[in-house]
């Protein structure tokens, strides 16, 4: 970076890029968290308002014991799996977006040395 200071006007450093980036990430995180929280806080409420339904026997377990003691774990793994694959895809998109944005803004195609995926992005 000694010969070329980062250009404060380039796309990666713009307010627009950051705002967009954080909003997309937060939206994904909140969507996944919501799916989790519905079950997490819904289960005590179900126990509270429908105790007989939750106490019915399923293979010896009470329904609520089966959900909390066993089924909860795979549910959370599924959310985590979805989140990880989505967020990795999101990162890929952002890298391309940043490269595109820079290319547009610089006009003459002067590549940002920090965006290694420039070639792919323009393809």
């Amino acid at each position, binding site marked *: 970076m000694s010969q070329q200071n980062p250009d404060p006007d380039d796309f990666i450093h713009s307010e627009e890029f950051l705002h967009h980036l954080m909003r997309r990430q937060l939206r994904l995180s909140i969507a996944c968290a919501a799916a989790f929280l519905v079950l997490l806080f819904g289960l005590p409420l179900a126990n509270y308002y429908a105790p007989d339904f939750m106490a019915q026997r399923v293979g010896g377990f009470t329904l609520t014991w089966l959900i909390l003691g066993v089924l909860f774990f795979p549910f959370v793994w599924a959310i985590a799996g979805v989140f990880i694959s989505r967020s990795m895809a999101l990162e*890929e998109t952002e890298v391309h977006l940043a490269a595109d944005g820079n290319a547009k803004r610089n006009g003459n195609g002067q590549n940002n040395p920090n965006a290694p995926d420039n070639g792919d992005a323009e393809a």
Partner: protein
Amino acid sequence: MPEPASFDIWILAFSAITVVVTIWMGFRSAKTSKSASDFFVAGRSVSVGWNASAISGEYLSAASFMGIAGMVMLSGYDALWYPVCYACGYLFLLLFIAGPLRRFGAYTIPDFAEGRYDSPAFRKIAVCFVLFIGFFYTMPQMKGAGTTLAYIFPGLPYWVGVALVGAVITLNVALGGMKGITLVQAVQYWIKMFAISVPIFVLLSVYGGYGENLSLNQSHTDLASPPAVVETVAPASGSESGSPQRLDLPAAAPTDADWLSPFGPLTSKAAEAAGLTPEETKPLSLLYTFSLIVALVCGTAGLPHILVRFYTNPDGAAAKRTTMWVMILIGVFYVFPPVFGVVGRNFLPELYEATGSKGPDKVVLELPMLIREKYGILGSILSGITCAGAFAAFMSTFSGLLVSMTGALAHDVYGRILRPSSTPEQRLRMFKWCAIFVGGVSVILGALVEPLEINFMVGQAFAIAAASYFPLLFMSVWWRGMTMKGAATGMLVGGLCALLSATLVNASTLALDKGPMGKLFAGFDGMNDFWKVHPLLRILAEQPAIWSVPLSIGLMIVVSKATRKTVPEDIRMKMLVLHAPEKLGLKQEYIEEQQVAGH
């Protein structure tokens, strides 16, 4: 009956092997870890598989291995929230904190606090909480150690076990640092997994399945519909032939219906002590449950000794994959401990009558001995295996805590605050002295808490983390308007409130103890009369997360708004480093900018 008069050779052998292997691996890797960076974050190059096993190994503490089973046996359904939230709290870490923190790149949370707000003063505040949470979390580990040794050597005083285990681990950490620990932790995860699952499969094959054991307990609903009842509770105790029959419950045990149903003894204790009717009790129990959930889920995301491990992955994608694997590894593990509690209720009910290190907290260790009557030596071997698992549990968690607390003292307090000009050699020497100091304090604290439940104490450590680090990390990552003053006020007030109320509840519980601790804490006995009159306050003090987390976040917002002129000037760059994909290389650029500006 499974009450060995002297120690059992199998149990001793398995435990000794675990300890010797742990120490040997520590010493062996001590030879290869030389530089200061090796000591603090293992040179930052640990593969996903190893790191996930190591995080899981460190995370599955004495609370997970022994405490959950004991608590499920004692309190039933409500205790299931602990394993579930211990495992699921990781999801919050993954969703909101793990990625950004990793991109920002810093050795410890105090590093993050300083870097995010350009404030060395804030680092000092953040360091305090590494120690607060750490010490709270070591107490239950020490109780696990004391309980296990008292089981292996009947007659050995509880505090001797605490001191012995504390000394061994402290030595190990002082010599090996974290590089040794990563390998040790990873191996210990697999020891624990083996030790919790194999005995339970054998026990279930002898005593009937998980569901079958649960069905021996009748809920309110079962009692209301008589035709559904097939299995009757046999009054015979000690009959050894045919299909296993449940033993009589002592008077100290909760009734079937209370035990099996939600809002049982764990969450309704305070309200019942106050003499409230069941209708009045139930909303308070619901409140207790919600507060517990908030504490455990947010607390996981703020545990300092877990977070530091995210930095040992080579990149952010690997850190995410690691978290996924951690969730699977610990999720599978957490299905098993409650089974011990369920079977223990049916077949080892005499534990209800004992307290301290002789009570339900040792059900995991003792339950396998039951099959000795039928299968002889196999019972001893299985009990030896669970003892080995218990050793792995408290040794690995205590090691991890010791590393992060010692790191905070040596790296932050000594290296940055007291003697910034110290050489790497001096810091390494200091690391060893700090380890000995922290280990010593932990042993003293651990010796005090014999009457408290292991799992309950861990829950409190989580509540403190939930009200201090979680708001700090969450808000710092997602809200650019945060100022140092806002972050510090919120973290300090929220965290200290949770710390004080948890300590107050513990002290008043210890005052009820009939042993020496009761005398030591007798001054707090008056609190118990107060709790009887104010059950709601008791619940809010015992489970403070439901008010301390919003308090902390609220203060952060209000104070930050009031001091918005002091938002760091390069906040946009900081946010970019936290959020932009690592491929864009902003981190490197940021470091260079800082160097140009600073020095």
